[in-house]
């Protein structure tokens, strides 16, 4: 039995799902306290294997973010711009070209100064070339962690998208959603009294609470995606909360990796693809898949034009089952 949960006002809807079929759905009694009161009792009583929560972070309040870009100077319009008025940004020297060549040594003093003086604790770090080589993002993270104890740090390479600015926007948004995600994960965790929660992703699939806290961005439209899935199976006539809760319970843990890799020859390409696969598998286990169940769902490799032969964009997606 898998339980899907759609928190909502005035009441939270719970769907019990077995073998992909909706057994029943009902609203949690409002008297038990919103939004998750009585959830643990119900889920425990049903003998639930997993509890899947469908929520959107769209309305969540964004925290002010300290954004560090590692790269060269650029026109003001292309520089990082904080979404929150309390945010802070800086560009420090460093980064790598797409061939992995260092553009400049990382300006560690500038990183330390900014981290120590910005007064914020949610960081987004984006280095030029990090899809190829994430060394500078990792080095920045180390300095920030030492300078700001308890800092939450998002590294852009973990989102892997092409384009520095797009990746930076992702990283900043993820960092901004961090505090809200931690709060939600704690609320759900407490309400479930030890049952492990899963959170619906934008698109399809689920992630563990741990993964959700770290990468809330990928769950930003979890409720919207769950509703679409639920309605697709149940039909348009269904009650919205039930469809959303049901849609969430249909998911399975999913995680992906996107990288740019350099490989000269077939053997080296096979090796880097194996690494990408292994990393996707590790991630999906971290996202809550039972280790034995993890498998690669797709692997795409595209050569990059107008660049040296042997540069490829690699995307690996892994799926698994809840324990």
């Amino acid at each position, binding site marked *: 039995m898998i339980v899907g949960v759609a928190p909502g006002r005035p009441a939270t809807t719970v769907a019990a799902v077995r073998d992909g079929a909706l057994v029943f759905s009902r609203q949690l009694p409002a008297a038990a306290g919103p939004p998750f009161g009585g959830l643990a009792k119900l889920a425990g009583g049903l003998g639930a294997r997993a509890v899947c929560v469908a929520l959107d972070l769209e309305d969540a309040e964004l925290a002010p973010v300290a954004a560090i870009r590692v790269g060269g100077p650029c026109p003001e319009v292309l520089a990082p711009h904080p979404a929150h008025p309390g945010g802070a940004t800086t560009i420090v020297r460093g980064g790598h070209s*797409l061939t992995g060549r260092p553009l400049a040594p990382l300006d560690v003093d500038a990183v330390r100064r900014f981290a120590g003086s910005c007064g914020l604790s949610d960081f987004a770090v984006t280095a030029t070339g990090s899809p190829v080589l994430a060394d500078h993002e990792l080095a920045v993270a180390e300095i920030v962690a030492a300078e700001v104890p308890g800092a939450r740090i998002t590294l852009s390479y973990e989102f892997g998208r092409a*384009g520095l600015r797009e990746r930076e926007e992702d990283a900043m948004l993820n960092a901004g959603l961090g505090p809200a995600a931690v709060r939600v994960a704690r609320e759900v965790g407490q309400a479930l009294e030890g049952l492990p929660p899963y959170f619906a992703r934008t698109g399809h699939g689920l992630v563990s609470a741990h993964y959700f806290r770290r990468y809330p961005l990928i769950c930003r439209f979890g409720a919207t995606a769950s509703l679409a899935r639920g309605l697709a199976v149940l039909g348009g006539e269904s009650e919205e909360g039930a469809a959303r809760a049901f849609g969430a319970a249909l998911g399975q843990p999913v995680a992906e990796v996107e990288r740019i890799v350099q490989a000269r020859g077939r053997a080296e390409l096979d090796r880097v693809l194996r690494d990408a696969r292994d990393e996707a598998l590790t991630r999906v286990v971290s996202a809550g898949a039972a280790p034995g169940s993890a498998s690669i769902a797709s692997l795409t490799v595209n050569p990059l034009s*107008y660049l040296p032969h042997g540069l490829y964009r690699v995307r690996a997606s892994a799926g698994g089952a809840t324990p």
Partner: protein
Amino acid sequence: MIGAGELARFAAGSRLFATGAAESSYRLVLDWAGSVIGPGVPVVAAEALAPETVCVAVSLVGSTTALGEQLPAGDEPVRAVRALERRLGGRVGAVVALNLAAENALLPLVAAALLEVPLVDGDGTGRVFPLVEQTTYTLGGVSATPLALAGGGGELVVLETAPDRVEAVVRPLVLAMGGWAVGACYPMSARELAGALVPGTVGRLLEAGAPGADRAVAAPYGMKTLCRGVIAAVEGSSGHGADLELPSLPSSIVVEETGGLRRLVRLEAHNEIVLALADGAPVAMAPDLICLVSAADQLVVDVDKAAPGMEVEVMVVRAAPVWHTERGQELGGVRAFGVPL
């Protein structure tokens, strides 16, 4: 005149038939153009310039992926043009585009704005080709060199070589600069330019990019829809161009026509689609432009992103007449892409 108000239309027009436009680099150059365009850049016909005005073509050279990753410092177009001016011993009076596809339409606009000179209404292909020398300027007898390249890391190179060596020399230089550079090339007088360019194309994009405008407006020599269908397969291809120095690998896209004759349409791509077969019979080929337009969002589908199951329209845009001459065929025809037809 392209000002803040016209920029969106020009940008939209530049994507109507553009393939290979990486989202990130296009957005980047568009934002950049918006920040430097100020009161606007005048657009003038080549004939309207004083005949001896020095004109240069400005273009992105190299990888759009690299540009999206390693951002420009902002002074690249000015540095490239100034370097060429030093070599030529005169001031540049107008900028012209090499081609008008996505960021390559916007980058000359950025250069013209920064240099405070007009942008010439026209371009060097009437479409897009992968190599620097595949232009009507070459067909008109203008040399691509001297050519200046400015990289994002402050690099600056002025290059002189025989026209057929340009690509071979430029490629490794650009890679050493991190994968992209802004190139200023084909220095020529306004008189020479007037005889060599495909005229009026900037104006057409402004018109075609207006909301609700017909895509055909951007195709001055005509266009037709070859078929509507669903991509059945995308295959690695072989048998042509393996030994050619083109920037990407050959592939082959199979489309099953959904209506009409339900033909099997095969598109051979090498950087771009160079040959279309319907049930084994050739129906379109370079130098005409063949592109896939997604039925979902009406955007041109990048050859690299074509995937089975996509609903597409296959369109053929007729190239400027000069491309259909014997010399034009030699430079930009199907044989230039290694297909022995």
